[in-house]
């Protein structure tokens, strides 16, 4: 079972972002309360604000918490700080700059003026493009292990795919979502294989 789970291909390629060291959490504690003024340890303050805006666009607040409330950008910043020597930390940072820079090519507004919905739309537009033209992700994967400087296109694709991947992971494994939003069942006792599912019942949390 575990063997099979390992075979599931989650995400787009890199796992490095979420495989950092014990540093995060230890550095300043992973805040899960809404704090726009958390202290970034890897990103510059303006980059941290940009990341928070992007994460919220990926998983916005509805009647359930958004990425900001779940502390996603804060968590990602600390994960990045712990792998700062890894070239993927650099890809992420530079890729975000490309994404922000090119934002207006994909939207009516510049990144700094964009609201949450507009950020959502731009990321979905990227995905639409990736689905329509499979060569984009194929070329990106092919270039992944190449040495030397990466093109802006590569960095952009790296960022878009990885920021989504890691935002989902960070959000759904956060204490806020795991304990308060999803159904939390740390010690089930017994296994019941076939119980009724009523519309509206949330999934069991990823403990």
């Amino acid at each position, binding site marked *: 079972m575990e063997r099979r789970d390992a075979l599931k291909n989650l995400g787009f390629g890199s796992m490095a972002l979420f495989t950092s060291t014990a540093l995060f959490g230890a550095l300043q504690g992973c805040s899960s309360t809404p704090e726009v003024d958390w202290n970034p340890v890897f990103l510059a303050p303006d980059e941290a604000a940009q990341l928070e805006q992007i994460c919220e666009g990926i998983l916005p607040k*509805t009647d359930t918490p958004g990425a900001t409330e779940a502390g996603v950008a804060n968590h990602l910043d600390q994960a990045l700080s712990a792998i700062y020597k890894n070239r993927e930390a650099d890809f992420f940072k530079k890729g975000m700059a490309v994404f922000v820079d090119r934002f207006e090519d994909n939207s009516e507004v510049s990144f700094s003026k964009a609201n949450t919905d507009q950020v959502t739309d731009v990321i*979905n537009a990227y995905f639409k493009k990736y689905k329509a033209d499979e060569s984009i992700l194929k070329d990106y994967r092919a270039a992944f292990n190449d040495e030397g400087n990466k093109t802006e296109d590569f960095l952009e694709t790296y960022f878009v795919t990885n920021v989504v991947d890691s935002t989902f992971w960070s959000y759904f494994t956060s204490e806020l979502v795991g304990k308060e939003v999803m159904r939390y069942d740390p*010690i089930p006792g017994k296994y019941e294989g*076939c*119980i*009724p599912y009523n519309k509206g019942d*949330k999934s069991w949390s*990823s403990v």
Partner: protein
Amino acid sequence: MNLNLKTKQVQTYDAIVVGSGITGGWAAKELSEKGLKTLVLERGKNVAHIKDYTTAMKDKWELPNRGKTPPEEIEKDYPKQSRTGYTINETDKHFFVKDSEHPYSETKRFDWMRGYQLGGRSLNWGRQSYRWSPMDFESNAKDGHGVDWPVRYKEIAPWYDYVEKFAGISGENRGFKMLPDGHFLPPMEMSCVESHFREKVESKIKDRFVTIGRTAHLTGPLPHDNVGRRSNCLHRNRCRRGCPYGGYFSSLAATLPAAEITGNLTIATDAIVHHIIYDAKTKKATGVRVINKNTGEHSEFYAKVIFLCASTVASASILMQSQSDRFPDGMGNDSGELGRNIMDHHLEVGAYGKHEGFLDKYEKGRRPNGVYIPRFRNIDNRSNTNDFLRGYGYQGYSSRDDWTRGIAEMQVGKAAKDKLFYPGLWNMGLEGFGECLPEHENKMTLDYDKKDQWGLPTINFDAGFGDNADAMRKDIAVNAAEMLEASGFKGIETYDYGANMGLGIHEMGTARMGKDPKTSVLNKWNQLHAVKNVFVTDGAFMTSSACQNPSLTYMAFTARACDYAFKELKKGTL
């Protein structure tokens, strides 16, 4: 000679057991319950049951990195141990060795997964427990690969009964001829989709069966004194971290506590056994040489009988290092078969798909078990194929898609997020476990040019799966897809990630048993042909691999060998 007689006395026992994993635990229990003063020597660290399961109660967000190990740390310490893809997490990496501290080399890739600690790999094993069938003990004789087993099912069946009753195996009796019934605790439930799958497969495909996995978890009261005070499985599926409830069978939860209450058990950890001392006059072993892992100090321990339960590879390695005038190529290696015929099960091949029905059904609890499809190939005229020899079984598992589906769907935003709080479609996957032929060419050797930090030779592997496995894998993928299709799954995809030896973590065969000392290392009692008071009862003794998970068979042979050794000791023949 200035022999310190007092020390010798202190360091003398009736029996020495090398290793404390699944078979070492059993040997310790059986021998000490028979009244033998028994010393267990474990090369790894001490682990205290419950107290040292430090991650057992932690949720993802309570782990420093939500469960994942940093890539730099994996690269440095676990480049080989991480090849499974599912171990070396923050939750359980402390129960696997660091490759950086315990190196080995590979002429051909070999995934050697090790757990050096009290309890060995009984702490992090897969817990699937199946009997072999009469057919499995006859397969070598039938097709001429390897040598014939000196044991038949009839002889080992009572020992399966014996170990199942003590260990506690959950499962259901179905009367399959290729997978004998056993003494089972109540079966775990199937999910709705698995029940549906079983019904369709069994009604539509002749001689094809699906049963709930047989697993070493308590689902009801044990028929004996529960010395380890084990509780029923609580379905948390955090087994590899160590179970504070003793829900699954391990040496720490079950056999060592039983051995301990006899008052006959002594355990030494951090004790690396590297040599068995041979006395040419009596033609027997007199004891073992040990290096203290931490201090490097050398010592010797003595006993009337020695049980090697150090694991398939490590037990062979100890015998190979035990050279003497009588045994220049390693103790008991008159046949030249020591370290050869390494087998494993090949896996990472199968199929998966999704079912559009049963959306009004769900499950509760995290069942640490799946379903099992016993072997159906080459068991009778109807099922014979010319494409390959032997056969395979499947392990299967279903669940409803969780939030991770959102990543694959490539959609973000409010609507995309909100639907991920709810379960998606049912998915089901089947993974084959294929039998491996015993091949003389598949071997491990000692490399005296590359020593480890204790000055002991390291191991080199030169072994792999052959054409038979390749042909079998095609059949595994095709039949997995067919069964899913027969039960209405959609979007079925087959997969084959390649057969890597060792990855099944079912390595076996390095000191096979046989009838003829010229072609085998052990006799039918797990006894070295040439040194009667040395027994090898871990996976090294296996003469063929079958396709079932092997630990239950190791347990049965270990208990049987202990019984035999005790009787022979009483007779004075050892």
